[in-house]
């Protein structure tokens, strides 16, 4: 059955022959993919002569899984989130990555100690820390919201809200806004009553939510005035605010930190070059370079010291990083185990909740 499917897909899809000096890297588009092109892809091509083709997806884990299942893989390297990396690895869909081949820090510290704890997986290498925050248009709210509960307060701050069309991060934010301390969020969310509570909180603003699906959408929704505030990935708002001079302000209270990781799908057409790319792009200098283009924290300890100014040459990057102590006062680390386990189930419930009138 699967073999037949492969044959027909290959026949119909006219699988492109693997070309030698080229790899395909799939990421999330917009300002984030742009930062990867500048910091990783271009220097990699300059050094090795291998062209890097950057393609975008709303969530690269989805096409990776579909391609591996269908046995017709065209992606060499993909940028996925932590729970997806764990899940795909568990399901045998990713190549394993030998940590000892990753370059050490400039002072000789081996990669296994240089990366932040937990950021090297059997099949994945982390590149950045990002965070889901909420942001507002300062020209709409001069006396802006300051806490996560303000996001759910339609009386005090009327207007539409933008939220990602998925349960992850939304449920945590709902609980924090409902008064659950960050440290207890996943304990509460692990109980059926906790899930009900989170959905009840979301329900209180459901009629005023506009759902976004791609990371590039929320800054656009804010700019169009379609929403008064929106959840977003912090780097996207940073890019709109600093590089495009939009009056957007990030509220760090209740931020949810996550990681993005490189993975290599099983059956990647250019496996060797893909592994070279992963090694190249996760050395100390490259990871620090990326922070020059977007406000996401590097996954290596040794890179942090190298973070300086934004590409405009005047904006200090540190205050815009999710890991900056000032921004960490009420922060939650996303629990990947919880989401690797419960995502399907909660997504089902989320869909049912969403579709109900």
């Amino acid at each position: 059955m699967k073999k037949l499917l492969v044959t027909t897909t290959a026949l119909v899809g006219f699988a492109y022959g693997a070309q030698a000096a080229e790899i395909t890297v799939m990421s999330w588009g917009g300002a984030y993919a742009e930062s990867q092109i500048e910091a990783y892809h271009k220097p990699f091509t300059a050094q090795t002569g291998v062209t890097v083709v950057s393609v975008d997806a709303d969530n690269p884990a989805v096409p990776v899984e579909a391609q591996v299942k269908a046995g017709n893989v065209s992606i060499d390297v993909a940028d996925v989130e932590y729970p997806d990396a764990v899940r795909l690895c568990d399901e045998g869909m990713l190549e394993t990555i030998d940590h000892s081949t990753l370059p050490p820090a400039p002072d000789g510290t081996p990669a296994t100690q240089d990366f932040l704890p937990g950021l090297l997986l059997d099949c994945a290498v982390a590149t950045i820390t990002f965070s889901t925050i909420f942001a507002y248009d300062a020209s709409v709210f001069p006396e802006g919201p300051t806490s996560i509960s303000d996001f759910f307060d339609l009386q005090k701050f009327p207007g539409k809200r933008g939220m990602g069309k998925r349960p992850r991060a939304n449920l945590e934010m709902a609980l924090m806004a409902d008064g659950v301390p960050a440290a207890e969020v996943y304990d509460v969310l692990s109980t059926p009553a906790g899930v009900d509570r989170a959905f009840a909180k979301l329900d209180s603003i459901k009629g005023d939510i506009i759902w976004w699906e791609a990371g590039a959408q929320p800054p656009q929704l804010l700019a169009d005035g379609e929403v008064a505030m929106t959840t977003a990935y912090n780097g996207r708002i940073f890019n709109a605010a600093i590089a495009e001079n939009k009056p957007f302000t990030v509220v760090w209270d209740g931020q949810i930190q996550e990681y993005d990781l490189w993975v290599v799908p099983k059956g990647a057409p250019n496996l060797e070059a893909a592994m070279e790319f992963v090694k190249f792009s996760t050395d100390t200098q490259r990871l620090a370079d990326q922070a020059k283009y977007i406000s996401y924290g590097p996954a290596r300890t040794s890179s942090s010291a190298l973070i300086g100014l934004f590409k405009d040459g005047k904006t200090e990057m540190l205050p815009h990083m999710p890991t900056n102590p000032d921004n960490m006062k009420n922060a939650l680390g996303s629990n990947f185990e919880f989401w690797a386990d419960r995502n399907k189930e909660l997504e089902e419930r989320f869909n049912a909740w969403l579709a109900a009138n």
Partner: protein
Amino acid sequence: MAEAVAGSGGGLRTADGRPLGEALAQAQGRARRRALLLVAPLLLFVLFSFVVPIGQLLISAFSDDDFARNAPALGAWFDENPRGSPIDESAYAALAADLKAAKENRTAGQMGERINYEVSGARSLFTSTARNADKFEPPYREAILAARAEWDNPRLWESMRQASSSVTPNFFLAAVDLRRSETGGIERAPEEVRVYQMLFMRTFALSALITVLCLLLGYPIAHLLATLPLRYSNLLMIFVLLPFWTSLLVRTTSWIVLLQSEGVLNNILVGFGIIGDDGRIRMIYNQTGTIVAMTHILLPFMVLPLYSVMRPIPPSYVRAARSLGASSWTAFRRIYVPQTMPGVAAGGLLVFILAVGYYITPALVGGATGQLISNLIAFHFENSNWSMAAALASLLLLAVLILYWLYDRLIGIDNLKLG
């Protein structure tokens, strides 16, 4: 030219003496083979790109062997021990053997994922237990329960029993908001995850509404096109066809521009003071958005069959009715409308069936409440639950076939004129 002559052996023969029937069959057979050869590339293409993949997909609605393939020992145990047998040491021994193999082959995630559809948390139960599976010693029951106590769950074992045969009706059950109970019976799914019945209803209701709207809007247009002199009607026809030739995405996004809360229509309404700046009407990212955009996009499918039926209707019939004393309304209702019925039927069927499977427009402008069943099919495909997507798609196909059959019984498919 086969000139028939009466031969000695009786029956008709051709001029060169062969039996007529045989010669005819030979000649026709050759023509048929040539015709077949000509369409062969198309047939093969349809077979490989359409029939085979769709057939496979429909089959996959019944089958998912992610668990069965990776759990041979458990499968054997379930075969030997019918439902209701105690989950004893031999069962746990089989589980331990399968988990050990799963650890070696990295398949614990696949196994767990399949069970996770029915028992949440099963995915991590499988992966975390498999991580230490090579260290399990008999008695396995104690060893496994010591690793994770959750293994002692009857629903889990029932789910594994069902998953150990690769053919399952469970996806179809889930597609109509049912599920298997702990004892293997059938029960309704918990209320908070029931969504498919409601979505099927909504899909059919909205499609019917869109069909009616298309008819209401399309009928006068088609009538106008059919009755105007040709040079005007050709010009008008271009206005109907132009959007038809424009990309679906362009048309959908232009509705976003028009209808969004900072959009053209709302700005005009606010500009004229009809509504306040804070009272902007929400016309998109909800059901209204889906209805408006889909009606517009599907309108040509209604207008074209209507037009092709109305054009040849001679105006003299209505004139005759009028001269015999019918009011214009009666003449229209009793003379004109019945003659356009084949077009109404064709347009209605076309629009309805297209609307039922519509995906991209509701995804873009439907927000949450304007989503149709096809959006959930897409969701399951994206999340690699192909069996679930296939089950939903099969049900949709079945429902459309039933409607088509009903339509044939009630109106008659011969009564359909597509142009």
